[in-house]
């Protein structure tokens, strides 16, 4: 990984698909770009790791073929199915879509390892990568943005003309930009366990568990089964996961031999209320940091708005206007807000209690 320099044209915070797609847009422009990542790379991330048709199309248009090493088994997912906790017979029902933003005729998703996929995207961008680099804070000055980081345990300052917050739902770039928005956010907890186990659900499908106030997912990934619980009300995510496990043990032959991983993540309700924050001046927010998450799919929004971010910065450099002037008018950004809003409505219509 790169050592940090004192000055860059662009600093991107976060090594997920949003930051990587923004960086890729700068690739051939001769700009000096660094992606800073708080974790050591490759970093894993709690996510089902399914590349849906919308994201697949974007990748086909803008990237080389996905390399084999990023895939897990089963390699593709056919579509979704669901079970309802309150169904006495616990039937496995077919779900109308895998990708709520897409035409159902084009279903199938790639089953990938997020750590390998995200690192591949970053490396394909051509940007310098600095891991173990945690954003402390930043301030805008007339000519530059001064960014304080902790890199490999050492506090330091780096400067750039543009700062891109691609740092996800707990975005520190957003926090400094809009403290009042931060105060208003409500948080949703997601918790996941991986098991070596048996279950009578066929691999190759994304299974949803729907409950009155919550939902979860079941996914075969490599040698493991991943069960995830997302709670939007008083029950803790850990307790909810226990209930799912009990339900699947009683109704679907779940027999756990070994728990191989436990982890969780937090999401805020910005996407569900359509409260997007695009940035200010030459500081842009992208992907989930801006509130862009399609229902059950954060990757596509991240890639699309990442591309728009990159193009907006390039236009800003040419014209002298701010990057936000272009980003807020960018056709992909305008369209993405509508797609996100529609997909969340569709999710609610399909009986998902989130939001």
């Amino acid at each position, binding site marked *: 990984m790169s050592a940090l320099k004192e000055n860059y044209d662009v600093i991107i915070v976060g090594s997920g698909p949003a930051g990587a797609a923004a960086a890729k847009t700068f690739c051939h422009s001769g700009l000096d770009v660094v992606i800073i990542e708080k974790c050591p790379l490759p970093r894993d991330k709690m996510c089902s790791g399914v590349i849906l048709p919308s994201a697949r199309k974007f990748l086909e248009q803008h990237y080389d073929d996905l390399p084999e090493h990023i895939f897990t088994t089963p390699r593709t997912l056919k579509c979704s199915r669901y079970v309802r906790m309150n169904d006495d017979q616990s039937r496995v029902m077919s779900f109308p879509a895998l990708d709520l933003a897409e035409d159902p005729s084009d279903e199938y998703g790639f089953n990938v390892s997020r750590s390998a996929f995200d690192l591949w995207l970053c490396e394909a961008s051509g940007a310098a990568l600095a891991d173990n680099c945690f954003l402390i804070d930043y301030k805008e000055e007339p000519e530059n943005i001064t960014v304080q980081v902790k890199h490999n345990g050492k506090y330091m300052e780096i400067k750039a003309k543009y700062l891109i917050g691609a740092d996800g739902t707990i975005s520190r770039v957003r926090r400094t930009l809009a403290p009042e928005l931060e105060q208003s956010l409500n948080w949703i*907890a997601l918790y996941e366990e991986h098991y070596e186990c048996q279950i009578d659900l066929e691999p190759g499908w994304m299974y949803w568990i729907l409950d009155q106030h919550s939902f979860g997912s079941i996914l075969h990934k490599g040698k493991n089964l991943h069960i995830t619980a997302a709670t939007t009300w008083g029950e803790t995510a850990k*307790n909810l996961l226990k209930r799912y496990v009990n339900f699947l043990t009683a109704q679907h032959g779940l027999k756990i031999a070994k728990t191989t991983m436990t982890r969780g993540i*937090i999401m805020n309700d910005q996407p569900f209320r359509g409260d997007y924050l695009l940035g200010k001046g030459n500081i842009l927010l992208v992907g989930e940091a801006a509130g862009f998450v399609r229902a059950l799919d954060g990757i596509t929004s991240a890639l699309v708005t990442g591309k728009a971010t990159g193009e907006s910065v390039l236009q800003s450099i040419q014209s002298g206007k701010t990057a936000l002037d272009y980003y807020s008018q960018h056709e992909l950004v305008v369209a993405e807000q509508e797609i996100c809003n529609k997909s969340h409505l569709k999710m609610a219509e399909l009986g998902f209690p989130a939001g």
Partner: protein
Amino acid sequence: MAYEITDDCVLCGNCADECPIKAVKNEGDKYAIEQELCVECGACTFVCDSGAIVTK
């Protein structure tokens, strides 16, 4: 990867401020993570300068 706070805690409170779901509580002589509430996102670990937050 469950986390806990060791006696290296210097009571700065960064972890409690950082936790979005308020799973870190001040217990007087150190901070502690409420295990049932914590979803192991790891956000607190990045703001702890004393290295007091470790995986169990």
